[in-house]
Structures are given as structure tokens and as C-alpha cells.
């Protein structure tokens, strides 16, 4: 089982921020879903995923983000690693998922 950890917080603007760490794959996707579910119940307009400490994300994890991106007006990936950025770019998803910086 890959090492994985996700933590939901709310920043000063009331936006849900999820810190995602470790490896996100088909086995850990349900964990991330469970952590984020309460935040999505409120139909937020914005969701921030802090992925600075995410080492790996497979297509299941990326599919989950894309699904969320359709649910909220804006899904922001905070500080993605060059590795993750390249994967998302390779999949043509850079236009769907806002990456900052």
C-alpha cells in the first residue's frame, strides 16, 4: 500500500484547502474522496488542492480531480511538482486544472 495522507482545512477566505501527501493511486483515491467529501457537500465554488508534497498521481487520481473540477467553478492545484505538471500537460489537462504557481 502506497504511503498517502490527506488533510482538509479552510483558509481565511472560507475556501476548502486539501493538503495531499504521498502517492495518489487507485488504492488511495478512496481516502482522498472521503477526506474531501464534507467540503463538497456545501457546493463550494472553489477547491484548492495543495499538492506540493504529492509525489505521484496516477490516472485514477487525475480523473478524480477532473471530476471535482466539473463540480466546482474553480479547482486549483497548489504548487504541483514539475513531474505532476508534465503528466497533466501530457494529458492536455493544463487548461482544465488551474496550477499555481
Amino acid at each position, binding site marked *: 500500500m502506497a504511503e498517502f495522507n490527506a488533510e482538509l482545512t479552510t483558509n481565511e477566505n472560507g475556501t476548502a484547502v486539501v493538503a495531499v501527501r504521498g502517492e495518489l493511486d*487507485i488504492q488511495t483515491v478512496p481516502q482522498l474522496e472521503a477526506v474531501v467529501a464534507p467540503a463538497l457537500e456545501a457546493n463550494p465554488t472553489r477547491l484548492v488542492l495543495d499538492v506540493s508534497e504529492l509525489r505521484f498521481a496516477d*490516472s*485514477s487520481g487525475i*480523473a478524480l480531480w*477532473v471530476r471535482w473540477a466539473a463540480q466546482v467553478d474553480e479547482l486549483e492545484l497548489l504548487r504541483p511538482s514539475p*513531474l505532476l505538471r508534465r503528466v497533466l500537460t501530457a*494529458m*492536455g*489537462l493544463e487548461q482544465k486544472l488551474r496550477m499555481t504557481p
Partner: protein
Amino acid sequence: MSDDGVEHEIHASRAERWPDWLPLATLVVGLALTAALALASAAQYRSNEQRLLRLRVHDAATLFTAALPEIQTSLGSAAELASATNGDVRRFRRYVAPLVGTKPGQSFVTMSLWQRSRISRGPVTVVGAAPELSTKAAAAFFAGATRGGTLNVTGLLHAPAPRIGYAYAAPAPAGGYIVYAASAIPPNHKSPVQSNSAFAGLDFALYLGRSQRPRDLLLTSVNSLPLKGRHAAAVVPFGDTSLTLVLSARHPLAGTLPQRLPWIIAIVGTFVTLAFSLIAARLATRRRDAERLAGENRRLYAEQRGIAQTLQHALLPQELPAIDGLELSARYAPGVDGVDVGGDWYDVIPLGRERVLVVVGDVSGRGLPAATTMAALRYAIRGYAAQDDPPATILTKLSDLVSVSRDGQLATVLCAVMNVDRREITVTSAGHLPPLLISGGDAEYIKSDVGLPVGVETDHAYSSATVTVAPGATFLAFTDGLVERRDESITDGLARLRGAALEQDGDLPELLERLVRGSHRDAAEDDIAILGLRWPSSTRS
């Protein structure tokens, strides 16, 4: 497509197995050891006791001989006195009177003076009880006393009360007188053992002479002879004869622990052995259970894996179509665990006479949901292709089948239309990794706009890019399992694949096989689908 993908091996080491005979062997060896130890301990105990008993019997026997000088002195002095006074009866009687009696310190019950030449006429005088010696017995008794100056232990009298007699003849020339004395022996020869004496805790029998005949018995501590149990005998000189002392121990001389030790060893050893045997038996049983479970798991795993692979085979093309003027090959390798069907696929669809649509795709996730979506996409592409839809349209239409919002799935799809005769490749990508083109000793990924993966947005417009290739060019389309490693950027993975492809110069199936094997060197966990096309080096005839 072949079956020799990466095999997941489960090692069952025979060296770790607990043999079934181990508990029994433990029991047998343990009991044998226990018995040997107990017997050795018992033997040690016996020899130790025997040694101690021998020491005791020698000590005790010495006590008896210690009485001898006193007797000799008493009789010797009386004999010297009689000789010196020429048989003065009055002085003899006065001298011996204190020695005769039953008070403590009085050794004799009777003392008498005899004249050697007149033995047949009886004693000259008697102090104390009657000597109870017939003339004949006296002659026999005194026969040994001819040599003067030594104490003769004349022997045992049994009637009327048991006695032991001594005779002493004064040395020649003054000789001629013999002093006879007798000490009483308790009735039945029974002598109680004082608890503080040398015989404490022991039974003994004292015999006159060297034999242990009942008629030679002087004293014993027991009611019936011979002595029971372990015994030791010692013979010590006593005057002109000997005393034989036989001892047996009533209790172990070295204490009770050495006596009980063999039993303690036997009992404790048996318990310990039984305990170890039970533990060994339990471990063996557990081991067997674990092996049975492991075997069951292996079987289930193999079955599951078999089902997954069968399903995967069924969902992928059974064989690639033969395309005139184009060599085709494909490989599919399940990931390391291989128990789930994957969502990777490839397809080759002839479009008319000279064009071929090549598809490689990957549905996110694993298992039946991924596999069914994959099958739906594959057959939908075939359907749309049959309607002459261009790849960009096909990919857009596929969004009806997959929705990340609805199913949580998306799919990356690469469509490449090959114009065989014109050697043109038109690539359209829905979020898929770029294909690799190997041509003239170089390898490059074909650059094209990468559109959104299928399932992300319903009305996404895709664009295509067309390249023309040289004769002998090789086109490789693949899924991310071939290049993706968790610890590596996808860019590095693509660079690695490019390098690996340049190193190979075999035929097409061999190239695919080597690339797949190379990517599995570090235990790839994802499935791999790879499809290769090669134009002949020379122009078509």
C-alpha cells in the same frame, strides 16, 4: 500477443518447512536423554553411597579393634601376675576382681586362672560367673594359646548365654598359667545403636572371624539377618583372629537429594520433553495450516490472475489484421499483481484500401469497470471508424461513453491514421502520450496538440498533426505503463524509452518484447500495451 508476460512468482522455501516427524523425534530424543540422565544420576548416587559406606565401615571396624589393647592389657597383667607369684590365687583374685562385673568399665563376666599342665582338672580359680567351659572345650580353646605373649580370641560360647572368650598365656619360660576371660554378648546378639555413635543411621552385623556365618555372629542391630539393601563389609585383625563388620545404611549417607535426584530428573525431564513435543506439534500444525492457506491463496491468486488474463485476451484483438506493405506487432503485459483486468487496449482498423487506423488507449482505474469502459470505447471507435468519421470526431463522440463526473473515469486515447503508400501518419491525441517514431538511426516523439482526455468535457475539439516518414520507419504507440515510474518524471521515462528503442535493431516483435521487458526491470505495477508498425525498408514492389 503472447502469454509470457511478467510472471509473479511466489517462493515457497522448502528449507523453512517444519518436518512432520519433529514432534515425535523431540519426544523420543527427550525421553531417551531424560532416561540416560536419570540412570547416570542413579548410578552416580549408588557408587557414591557405596564409597561412603566403605569409609564408614572401615571407621567403625577400627572402633572394635580399639577395644583390643585394653583386653590384652587386662589379661596379660593377670597372667604375668600369676606366673610371678607362682599361681597365687588370692593375689590373682584381688587383681582381677575390679574387672569382672556388669558395671560400666567392667569388661568381663568371668575371669579364671588355668594351669596349662592341668587343664583337664578345671580352672585354678574363677572370679565372676562360671567359665562354662567343658574340659574338652577348654583344651580346644587353649590349644591356640600355646605361644605366650599374645591374646587369643578363643571363640564364641552360645550356652547358657552368648559370650566371647579370650585367653592369654604368659610368655615362656615363666608360662604355665593361662588367664581366661569372657565378655557377655547381649541376648539374641542384639545391640541397640546409639544415635550419637559411629553407627548412627546404620545397621550392622559383627562377626568373629572372616566369615559371615550366623554362628559367628557377635552383635547386630537388626532383628533378622542378613542385612538388607546396600551393604559393605570390612575385616580387621582382632587378636589372633579377625572381626568382620557388615554395615548397611538405613538412610542415604549423602542426604536425600542425591537419592531423589534421578527421580527429579526423570519427572522434570519427562515434563519438559512433553512440553517441547507439544510445542513442536503445535508449530508443525500451524505450519501445515499456514502452508495449506498459502497453497490455497496461490491457487486463488492464479485463478484470479487466469480469469483476469482471459478476460483481457478476450477484450483485445485476437489477431492483428494483415496489412499489405506494413509490418504490425503488438504486446500486452499485465502489471505486477496482475489479478485485475486493466483498462489498456490497442486496436488496428483497416480503413479502405490503403489507410489504417491505429488506436492505443488507457482507461483510468482497474478492474471490471475499467475493462468494460475499455471494451465500450474500443468497439465504439470501430463503429465510428466504419462511418468514416475522422479521429477528431471519433474522440469527441467517445465522450458519450465516458464521463469523469458520472463514472469517475476518463480515458486517454491516441488515434493514428496511417497512409501506407504515402507513408503519412496523422496523429490525434486525447490526453495520451506521444507515439515514438524510429527512422534512420534516430528516434523522435511525434509532436501534436494534446487534447483533453475522453470523458472530461463533452464538446472538446481535437486537432491532428501529420508527419511523413522514410521507408523502414518504425512507429510505436504505447500506454503509460511502459514509461511511467513513480520516482521519475514522465519526461525522463520518455527519454529512457527513446534510448532503449535506439539500442535495439531486431525485428519488430523482438523490439516490442525487449522494450516491455526493459520497462519491467523495476517491477512495473501498471499494465503495458504497445503497438508497433514498420514500413519495409525498400519501396513496395
